[in-house]
């Protein structure tokens, strides 16, 4: 049967499903923003979305291009300054889920968004960490959404911008970090969750039609699987409709500016 959705849509839908109605979610721009708003517009209407520009409880009708579009402020419960956002709300421990993406990730879900190559002589200078270093350690848990590929899913990342599970095991606790870190990695092929002991991200659910060979071909480390691997439920017609309408509204709004 021909799938009537794209791998990217499966990824966004699977990520959206991970958010709960009672979550307070710190949202990154791009894929995390699409997933978080899909959650809000489908199964989690009361989820609280927070963007680092200071908007608390925002309900945008179109996806923002930047983290501080006027749309976010106009539809927010309130907007606080950026120092207050990072001090009272993020550092203060009031955010249950941080939603991140990255350029490079390793098997412990450490993320690099800083450089490819040597820091002082970079092959590619990436944008940098932004809020991620503290989001990764201050939010109750972290969801990561990233499309898979050999260049992004690597054995060794070039720079630790934000920590996942460090070198595994109790790495986080040894650094004095009290939060859970990455509990889900949602890709265009599968869903990974940390092994309870080693904290290596292992596949717990494979998207429909995806093979283990395909997953391995797009990963720079030897992929491990949970004892019981589920098949991710296909996106429902309703999920796809909401996502596509959201993206169509967004495209129209950004073109019109």
């Amino acid at each position, binding site marked *: 049967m021909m799938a009537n959705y794209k791998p990217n849509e499966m990824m966004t839908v699977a990520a959206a499903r991970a958010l709960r109605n009672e979550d307070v979610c710190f949202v990154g721009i791009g894929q995390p923003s699409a997933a978080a708003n899909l959650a809000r517009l489908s199964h989690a209407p009361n989820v609280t979305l927070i963007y680092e520009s200071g908007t608390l409880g925002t309900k945008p009708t179109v996806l923002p291009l*930047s983290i*501080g579009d006027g749309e976010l402020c106009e539809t927010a419960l309130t907007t606080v300054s950026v120092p207050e956002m990072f001090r009272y709300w993020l550092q203060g421990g009031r955010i249950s889920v941080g939603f991140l993406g990255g350029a490079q990730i390793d098997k412990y879900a450490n993320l690099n968004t800083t450089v490819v190559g040597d820091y002082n002589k970079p092959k590619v200078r990436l*944008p940098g960490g932004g809020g991620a270093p503290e989001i990764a*350690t201050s939010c109750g848990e972290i969801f990561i959404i990233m499309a898979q590929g050999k260049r992004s899913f690597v054995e060794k990342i070039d720079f630790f911008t934000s920590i996942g599970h460090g070198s595994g095991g109790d790495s986080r606790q040894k650094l004095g970090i009290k939060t859970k870190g990455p509990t889900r990695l949602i890709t265009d092929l599968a869903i990974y969750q940390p092994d309870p002991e080693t904290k290596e991200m292992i596949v717990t659910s494979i998207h429909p039609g995806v093979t283990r060979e395909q997953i391995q071909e797009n990963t720079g480390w030897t992929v491990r699987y949970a004892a019981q691997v589920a098949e991710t439920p296909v996106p429902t017609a309703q999920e796809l409709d909401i996502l596509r309408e959201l993206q169509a509204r967004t495209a129209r709004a*950004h073109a019109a500016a």
Partner: protein
Amino acid sequence: MARITSLAEAVQAAVHDGDTVAMEGFTHLIPHAAGHEIIRQKRKNLTLIRMTPDLIYDQMIGMGCAKKLVFSWGGNPGVGSLHRLRDAVEQGWPNALEIEEHSHAAMANAYEAGAAGLPLAVFRGYLGSDLPKVNKNIKRVTCPFTGEELAAVPAHRPDVAIIHALRADKAGNVLLEGVLGVQKEAVLAAKRSIVTVEEVVDDLGPRSLNAVVLPAWTIGYVSEVPGGAFPSYAQGYYARNNSFYKAWDNIARERDTFLAWMKENVLEKGPEAFAQHARKRAAAAE
């Protein structure tokens, strides 16, 4: 006490070669017109501080105003790279650029500490990140009460802070609404300041009792530059021009297209060129 002057006069008086300059505005209210004026006045060797360098510093770096950049996220939001910043870091064009890289939390805390007159900012940060390995201004301190190890960075104390705001009254009191970023902190942390505004009015108008107002006596210069945040935005006046942010990717990708755009739109223009982007305040705000 704020002096209401032209933008050219304000930049002439407040921004000098070699200064440490913070031009803030977190996506909202980015002082693009002031950036263009600094480029026209050919300021050099500036240390530029900004959480998100954005198009404003991409332009200033590409035009050779900067020797150092202090920042926390250097991309074109939702679009991709800042090509001029990358060219400076990767190829040293038009000159080598020293970078001091932080996280957003560190930058926000450093501005707040500067505004508070403290020498350093203390926060729970950088745990497990490589940034402290490449930035000697990130240190750890131990809480004398609990023993907890915390991150410390020096306070931002720029020579001059430059922001764009919605409006000022004739005395030079300035109103900010919407996404506030770190603008208030940047102005209070700096030795000198310039605020460009959409309009100078008799009275700031109806506002919340807790509206963010910078009193005239905290500001050096106020200049009326309608549209002066474009392609960023001014809440209640005009929206962020997302299509320009996308277009910038092509303009700035190559050195020659970048220089041609800067010549036509910055060097051969003045602050009044921003007026075409200005809009009257939305009726709902009246």
